[in-house]
């Protein structure tokens, strides 16, 4: 019995020493708590936070400021909250929206429902908008993100914010993390590429497109590949006569893959 007790005491002492050393012999570092998932944030988000998210999307992922800026490629949105109410009554309006909020949402995913005069695609007599559907393609906003942008637009134009934060959490995939971690697949068709990067918003090809940048219909006849490459990667290096500086985004080179750039150059150089 004595032996038995000694063994028990010895065992307890040993375990006690190990536990004591782990508790007091080494520093206790509190590991970071599990990161909160983005989707959970939406549920507890305040309206201010939601509007801020919209602003981030408007300036970032949405690429809206590419055209909606002081240079006048697209209508200014500073007063869109007030203007929108009038649009609904405009006889040219073809959409189905009944409220300002619905109108703004519609204008993001179906831009051609109402085209402000002077901002339509060339040759469509302002019936078709050069703006892409933000929920699809390269931008790919989720329903919740579109709602956030609408909330931001209402807020920034001084209108009453009527948007409600979507509580259906599943609708929001994430806030853009996925785009970067999972690169899109390379595109082989130059026309699709032009559509993805919305080149036709500014450039005209075959009579379709904007007039902000030079007409590309026969660009291959007057410019070689090297010039075109420079024009895409560093747009302000040479400015064609009659056009302004700083109109074309400078990050085209980063946005497209090298292979895509070559495909695009082949295509453009072949336009004679």
């Amino acid at each position, binding site marked *: 019995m004595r032996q038995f007790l000694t063994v028990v005491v010895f065992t307890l002492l040993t375990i006690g020493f190990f536990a004591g050393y782990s508790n007091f012999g080494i520093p206790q*570092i*509190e590991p970071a708590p599990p990161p909160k998932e983005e989707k959970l944030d939406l549920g507890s988000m305040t309206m201010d936070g939601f509007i801020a998210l919209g602003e981030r999307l408007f300036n970032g992922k949405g690429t809206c400021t590419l055209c909606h800026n002081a240079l006048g490629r697209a209508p200014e949105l500073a007063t869109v909250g007030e203007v929108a109410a009038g649009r609904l009554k405009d006889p040219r309006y073809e959409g189905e929206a009944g409220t300002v909020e619905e109108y703004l949402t519609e204008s993001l995913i179906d831009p051609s429902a109402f085209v402000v005069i002077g901002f339509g695609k060339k040759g469509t007599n302002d019936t078709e908008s050069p703006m892409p559907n933000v929920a699809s393609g390269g931008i790919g906003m989720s329903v919740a993100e579109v709602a956030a942008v609408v909330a931001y637009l209402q807020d920034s134009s001084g209108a009453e914010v009527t948007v409600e934060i979507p509580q259906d959490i599943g609708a929001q995939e994430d806030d853009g*993390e996925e785009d970067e*971690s999972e690169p899109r697949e390379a595109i082989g068709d130059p026309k699709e590429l032009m559509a993805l990067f919305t080149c036709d918003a500014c450039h005209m090809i075959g009579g379709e497109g904007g007039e902000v940048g030079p007409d590309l219909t026969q660009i291959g006849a007057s410019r070689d590949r090297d010039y075109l490459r420079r024009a895409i990667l560093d747009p302000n290096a040479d400015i064609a006569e009659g056009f302004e500086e700083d109109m074309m985004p400078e990050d085209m080179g980063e946005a497209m893959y090298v292979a895509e750039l070559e495909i695009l150059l082949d295509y453009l150089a072949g336009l004679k």
Partner: protein
Amino acid sequence: MRIPKLLQAVLVLAGVYFGFIVVFDVILDAVIPSSLLVMYMFFVTAGVFMVFTYDEEGTRELVAPIKALVEDPSKRVWRNIVFVIVPLAAGAGTYVQMQPSFEAPLELRTIHPAPPSTAKIYGKRVNLLKLENPFRKLEKEDPEQFRELVEEGAAVYIENCQYCHGDKLDGNGPYAAGLNPTPLNFQDVGTIAQLQESYLFWRIATGGPGLPKEAAPWISSMPVWQNFLKEDEIWKTILFLYDYTGHSPRSWGHE
């Protein structure tokens, strides 16, 4: 005369203890941390105990004086003295331990906290696991241009970093003495030589405030360099750090 075993053991332990202190604190001028010394001595004691007790005679000789002290009637005076001193010494030790001191509490910083898998740098979300120095490949492909980039990195370093990290990259710049924690010594084999370039990029770009919670207290005064430097400047500086110290970044590829 043969020294009794118990005394031998005590002498060995005392010798090792003061040996550590003399070698580290006096000869090498690099204090041995007391927390470490305590653990060192614990295991040295265990080792000494093992050597002195693996056979019966040794054990008997070792414990004989202790046994005698407790049991031998002729040692009564000594016994009484020891039995008074031991509790007193224990009490004194406890008192000293518990006494409030002016010493600031121990703070431990994890010097290499685990990086997050992604981090937001320059407004972009970057994947730190896959991030690579865009200029590193030039080391092989275009040594001349690589040298130029290192030079440019050196210029950035001299302009921004050397005030704290030192012109020898040894963490001993003009301002280093005023900082706690002190600036990192890049010459040390335990710092950048153990890390990947993406890790350095993350630490430089997000600075002290970018440290994760487990590295608390993040009293580090390292600035958030993404607010002051361009992305390629940071990468060039990293090239310079490795080039000057002669270390190479940790990588899992082969040469």
